């Protein structure tokens, strides 16, 4: 399956290095329309101004976690249908279950590679011909 290179992606992580990694990997996938935020509150506010086509978020952030952000997105009438990929070092079974129950679209465990990122994006944002 191919990738929708015109999509607008919001990436959220409190580590600027990880934001940079994600932005660079997305650029290599020819996805250039990328917004980023260092925390979940900023991301949510930005998404309310302009809704993205995909959200890629870390989990372990303070004070609002990625799980909180996911729940907030799923509870928001305008944002609830946006695919949400959790990219996190939290890899325990209970984490995956909690994220799934909150409506996550897919789950990537850190450290990850470019191919995993591409595959998960394709799986949640299939290109419509």
């Amino acid at each position, binding site marked *: 399956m191919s990738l929708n290179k015109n999509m607008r992606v919001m990436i959220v*992580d409190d*580590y*600027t*290095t*990880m934001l*940079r*990694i994600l932005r*660079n*990997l997305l650029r*290599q996938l020819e996805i250039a329309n990328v917004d980023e935020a260092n925390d979940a509150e900023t991301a949510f506010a930005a998404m309310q101004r302009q809704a993205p086509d995909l959200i890629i978020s870390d*989990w*372990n952030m303070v004070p609002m*976690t990625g*799980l*909180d952000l996911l729940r907030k997105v799923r509870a928001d009438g305008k944002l609830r249908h946006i695919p949400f990929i959790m990219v996190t*070092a*939290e*890899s*325990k*079974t*209970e*984490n*995956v*279950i*909690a994220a*799934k*129950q*909150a*409506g*996550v679209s*897919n*789950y*990537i*465990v*850190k*450290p*990850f*590679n*470019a191919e*995993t990122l591409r595959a998960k994006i394709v799986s949640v944002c299939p290109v419509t011909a």
Partner: protein
Amino acid sequence: MSEASSSVSRLQDAQGYLDRVLRELRVLNSPQKDMLVAVLQYLSDHISATRREIGAMRPSANGQFLSGTTDELEEILTETAKAANRIMDAAETIENVAGTVGGDAAQTLMAAATSIYEASAFQDITGQRITKAVRALQSLEAKLVSLSGAFDSFEEGLEAPGGDQALLNGPQVAASAASQSDIDALFESLGAP
């Protein structure tokens, strides 16, 4: 009364009761008392020694026990972040050059840049581990400060978090961490949310 003061008070009371029982036992005219007196005296001496040892604990001049250690760990965080950003600068340069050369060389350079980006995630992982260790040390330090100030009981340990807080475990050790394929299998098995 604070929990620490309450613990100190209980410790002092326990020793007071023990010493009182010892005094009462010593005046008894019973051949069986010697063993009991010896055991109780041992307990009293042990409580006394413990109180002295805890009371002798002193933080450093700035009022902290582990500040040097947490500062050094935070320094590691800063330095690894700087190093990761320099590595990324170099990778971005490689990627830019790849765009100018074309052909197989371009693909090789692009693949190298991708590998560097992937590997640079080490800073995020180590950062989370170090942050977790720093928080644990800060929590331990708070307990030690309380303990040294009031001979607090050290048995309470760290409170286990509940709710969403219990889900914030950070990276797992490699030997027990789930792989992406483990996560995928679990994710699929859960079905629709």
